[in-house]
């Protein structure tokens, strides 16, 4: 049977929770549904053409631009947003707390990789995705992996430093 998803009501699995989407338009992107229907504003809306990476999320574990995903076609997929990364950030509406950052988020803070902050959620998702696949990336590998995320504040040096910090902590052997 052809699975027919009707825009007026379907379900997405977001950060492990089944979320019902009501009243969305047929052509709404996953980004719009996450932000405007499900109250998850972590993924940012900037270019809506896949150029900036600020809407990065994982769909079935794969890094994608949520602005280029048709939300209705993602029905039944597992979506992980930035809200789903930190230990208690998963529930909609939870206040972010300094104490509940992932190591990547903490490194971004420590290294000064967060300035206006708009691009940060996209970078954090992309950095987690990279380091989950490649625990010890080379410099060029980091740059290639993050080439789709634009930052207009930092000049990128501090973001690259944050990645280095995470790699060195994660790959450090036990203290002697």
């Amino acid at each position, binding site marked *: 049977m052809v*699975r027919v998803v009707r825009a007026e009501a379907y379900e997405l699995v977001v950060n492990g929770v089944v979320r019902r989407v009501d009243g969305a338009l047929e052509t709404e992107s996953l980004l719009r549904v996450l932000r405007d229907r499900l109250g998850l504003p972590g993924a940012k809306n900037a270019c*809506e053409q896949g150029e900036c990476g600020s809407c990065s999320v994982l769909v079935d574990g794969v890094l*994608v631009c949520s602005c280029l995903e048709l939300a209705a076609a993602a029905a039944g997929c597992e979506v992980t947003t930035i809200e789903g990364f930190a230990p208690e950030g998963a529930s909609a509406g939870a206040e972010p707390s300094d104490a509940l950052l992932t190591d990547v988020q903490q490194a971004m803070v420590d290294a000064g990789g967060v300035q206006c902050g708009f691009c940060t959620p996209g970078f954090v998702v992309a950095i987690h995705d990279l380091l989950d696949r490649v625990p010890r990336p080379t410099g060029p590998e980091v740059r290639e992996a993050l080439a789709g995320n634009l930052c207009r504040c930092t000049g990128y040096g501090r973001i690259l430093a944050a990645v280095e910090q995470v790699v060195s902590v994660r790959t450090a052997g036990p203290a002697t």
Partner: protein
Amino acid sequence: MPTLVPRRLSEALDALADDPSLTVLAGGTDVMVGVNYGQRRPAGVLSLRRVPELRGWHVDDDEVVLGSATTYTDLLAPDLARRLPALAAAARTVGSPPIRNTGTIGGNIGTASPAGDTLPVLFAVEAQVEVASAGGTRTVPVSEVVVGPKRTALAAGELVTAVRVPVAAGPQEFLKVGVRNAMVIAIASCALVVDLTRRQVTCALGSVGPVPVRDTAAEMWLRARVDWDGGRLSHQSVVEGFGRRMAAAARPIDDHRAPAAYRRYAIEILARRALERAWCAS
């Protein structure tokens, strides 16, 4: 209007036969930009994201058969990249990791953009496109599928299901010029494919014509100037001559990305460089 998410190819083809006006969503990286900007208002969408038959690849004799939902990221996997090096090189220049995770080779063909990055490679290797409809299947050379800017010869109700690409039989190159290395739409690109078995060289240019441009006369000219037994070009002037011929074959236009004269200039250099690199590698 509903979004259709079939789980089998036969369901997708039946749905498209019932309503050929459905917008087919492969990866969606082009379609969704148009939707987001209000330039496209699909009356209904047929998503191919959940059709496992369109994923994956296998080797069939001296060809690789790529499911049309093969992503650019899939093309970078070492097992595929060593068989289809130019296609992998082209895939690596597409967008960014999330775009490469999403966009597909079938979508690149269906979109038929003059700047589609895999298209010059597919033209240079003379790939065959497998097309299916509820009424049956056919196999068509890619140059007879991609027939104009954003125009294909697919009939109503037809889908690209697979692409048959010959396994490399010699060095291959793909070179692309844009304003930066990542996230860039080609201003000019060049795919060069050497076949040491059949002793031929083919070359196709991207973003300098309505569809990828080949010049079979230039290819024959080059072929006659290769010392095939010695594995080298007969003279350095061959490189310059080939660059000039490909630049003359290009049919670029002025647009917001680059003037025609720059594109032609870039093609001369890219064709020369591709030839030099291919022969250095052999």
